[in-house]
């Protein structure tokens, strides 16, 4: 191994294709879907579903077949490919991207801790059929944002029927409506089997579309990523089969608490991918800004000393540098995932940096584009609104900075809270 930033040829080719999809099925609809908040990006969904379905089929096959020990192992590029896919789709439109018909975070959880039987039972739907299917993850509650230990949604085991009975309310569930009401999808619901056990009692359950007692009670109206479906879901004596629990049902704490650890481990994968989404939005804004500046005769002269730069040139260079910094931190966190190294520190570093950078870059782009930047005629203002989500979800910047701080200081949650 050696230090290397080369993106493999086949991924570069993928990028070209994804860029085409973004240009054709995302950008033309960006404004319209922003203005009509709860409409669906059908052009994108219809275009991407057949492609995604095939990929998900391949993934499922790999998940369920026994690996051939004689087959030569290539270094994995799964996450690298995913990172650049997410980056490009978010460059297309971050809100539309989030409507990607796939198992999404729900799928990650199933892949991470599901049994082989569960993988087939739950994931097959994402790999076949004419109609797109969505998966979702429901974690946050009104009283439990950063503090997942405060989750109130309960799962009670009913011996009589061999079922789990869920009660509670989840909010901020991405694609929850698509998963439960507009497709034959599923949602991973985090619920506690024992409130007195704190995190030890928290378990993930698979709730399928059509389950009685499960209701999408609200679609949020949002600052940005308006094309994304963000819903609140209520569970009123919602009954699911006993084997819809992921992992063990036993209350465990500490290292043995694989359910919770599994959820946290998915953050190590999801945070750099969220960061990748931020990068895409930031790049969209920066490219657009540079294009408009070029039209006004302003170029960025990299080798020119500071005293010969205009304020705008300097700003653009700083934006580029920030974006590059966030990109490289993300690339590193992703490379570690592909190498199956623990990347909690690097994942949170990438997430917080990318969140801050996309916020700053898009806010600055709006400013530098003046009265037009603030206008809904152009997309700059939308990218600013879309970008901001990256400092808020999948752990706010503050929470992710706290994670970084704990790691570098080698402090436990109790030592640094």
């Amino acid at each position, binding site marked *: 191994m050696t230090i290397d930033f080369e993106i493999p040829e086949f991924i570069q080719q993928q990028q070209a294709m994804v860029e085409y999809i973004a240009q054709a099925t995302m950008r033309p609809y960006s404004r319209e879907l922003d203005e009509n908040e709860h409409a669906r990006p059908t052009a994108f969904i219809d275009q991407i579903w057949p492609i995604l379905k095939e990929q998900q089929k391949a993934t499922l096959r790999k998940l369920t077949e026994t690996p051939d020990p004689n087959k030569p192992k290539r270094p994995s590029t799964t996450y690298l490919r995913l990172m650049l896919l997410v980056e490009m789709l978010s460059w297309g439109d971050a809100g539309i991207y989030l409507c990607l018909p796939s198992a999404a975070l729900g799928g990650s959880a199933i892949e991470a801790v599901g049994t082989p039987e569960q993988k087939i039972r739950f994931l097959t739907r994402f790999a076949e059929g004419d109609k797109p299917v969505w998966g979702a993850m429901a974690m946050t509650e009104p009283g439990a944002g950063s503090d997942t230990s405060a989750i109130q949604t309960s799962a009670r085991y009913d011996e009589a029927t061999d079922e789990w009975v869920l009660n509670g309310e989840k909010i901020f569930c991405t694609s929850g409506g698509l998963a439960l009401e507009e497709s034959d999808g599923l949602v991973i619901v985090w619920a506690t089997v024992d409130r007195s056990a704190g995190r030890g009692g928290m378990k993930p359950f698979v709730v399928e579309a059509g389950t009685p007692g499960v209701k999408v009670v609200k679609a949020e109206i949002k*600052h940005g990523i308006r094309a994304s479906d963000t819903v609140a879901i209520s569970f009123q004596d919602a009954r699911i089969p006993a084997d819809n629990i992921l992992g063990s049902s036993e209350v465990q704490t500490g290292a043995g608490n694989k359910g919770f650890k599994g959820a946290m481990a998915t953050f190590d994968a999801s945070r750099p991918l969220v960061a990748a989404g931020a990068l895409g939005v930031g790049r969209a804004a920066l490219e657009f800004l540079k294009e408009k500046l070029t039209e006004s005769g302003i170029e960025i002269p990299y080798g020119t000393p500071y005293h010969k730069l205009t304020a705008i040139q300097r700003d653009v260079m700083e934006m580029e540098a920030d974006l590059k910094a966030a990109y490289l931190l993300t690339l590193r966190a992703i490379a570690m995932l592909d190498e199956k190294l623990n990347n909690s520190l690097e994942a949170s570093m990438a997430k917080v940096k990318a969140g801050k950078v996309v916020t700053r870059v898009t806010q600055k782009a709006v400013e530098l584009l*003046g*009265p037009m930047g603030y*206008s809904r005629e152009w997309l700059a*203002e*939308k990218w*600013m609104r879309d970008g901001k989500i990256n400092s808020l979800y999948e752990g706010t910047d*503050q929470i992710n900075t706290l994670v970084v701080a704990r790691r570098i200081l080698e402090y436990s949650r109790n030592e640094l*809270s």
Partner: protein
Amino acid sequence: MVSFTLTEDQQALTETLRRYAVNDVRPVAHDADEDSKLPQAVVQKGWELGLIPAVIPEELGGFGDPLSAVTGALAAEELAYGDLSLALAVLSPALFAYPLLLYGTAEQRENLLPLFLEETPAPVTAALLEPGIFFDAHELQTTATHEGDKVRLNGTKAYVPLAAESHWMLVYARSSETGVVEAYLVEDSVAGVQVESREKLMGIRALPTYRINFNDATVDAACKLGGVVGMDYPALLNRQRVALAALAVGVARASFEYARDYAKQRVQFGKPIAQNQAIAFMLAESAIEIDAARLMTWEAAWKLDRGEEATREAVLAKQYADKAVLFVTDNGVQTLGGYGFIREYPAERWLRNGRGFPAFAGLAMV
């Protein structure tokens, strides 16, 4: 003598405006933004506060108070604390009234100032900003060409508030002969004045703003504000800078106070999130930036009221306030976490409105 104490009159005024902002404006601000519609009853009530009649000379039927930039800044902050769209709407008659009051010829004043003593808001506006990514108030693209006793206006203006319902507008244009910027009192009935469709912006969505095309729009030369003497354009630019800075402070303060109260009440990990230094420091830094921006605005206004050259102070105050309001309203969203992104909470609206200030020029006046 250094003092930061308001006069009794200013104190009374700010209290009245704050009550209006809290009791009348806040309850309608969300829907106004969502519906892109000004609540006329609330605008009417704002008009009835009498900010402009107060400074119309007694001989013309007003109350004859001196026009004070400091008082104007205090008022603007309170109104923006309610809502920026409504504040801009309520203050919009001043865009026409104050330049007229300050620089109008006797005849212009006598003819037009009575407009501001009516029971409903004067249907007036002003057009300074121009479309495009760059705007330079000293190099306007809109031109005024004098031909005998007529003046032809040509060019395009943007972000003109309430243009569609205005009967009079003050149009800033560069003389195609001398390059000097002058302002013209233009009636909406003038041929060649074309109000385009309403603009769509990220924020201030309740405030209707428009592009206006001037296509050989021809008015009498007597419509030039201030006649031969003209106006003090740099001073007017400073007055709008101070007004916008004060409005920015108001928006920032609204966001800050909401975030502060939210942080004290929102419990995570067994305690209010305000008890985390990360949150508490963000709020403390916001508080400092708000106070700093306000003091800079006051200082610039104070210089204007003394009739001193105030460009440096006004420019720095405006720039500082532009940055402060972004910093504070972004912190506001951040403090609310996920709720900061939801439009049912006001934090994101303040961020959308706050981000607009660097683009706003000529949208308010003290």
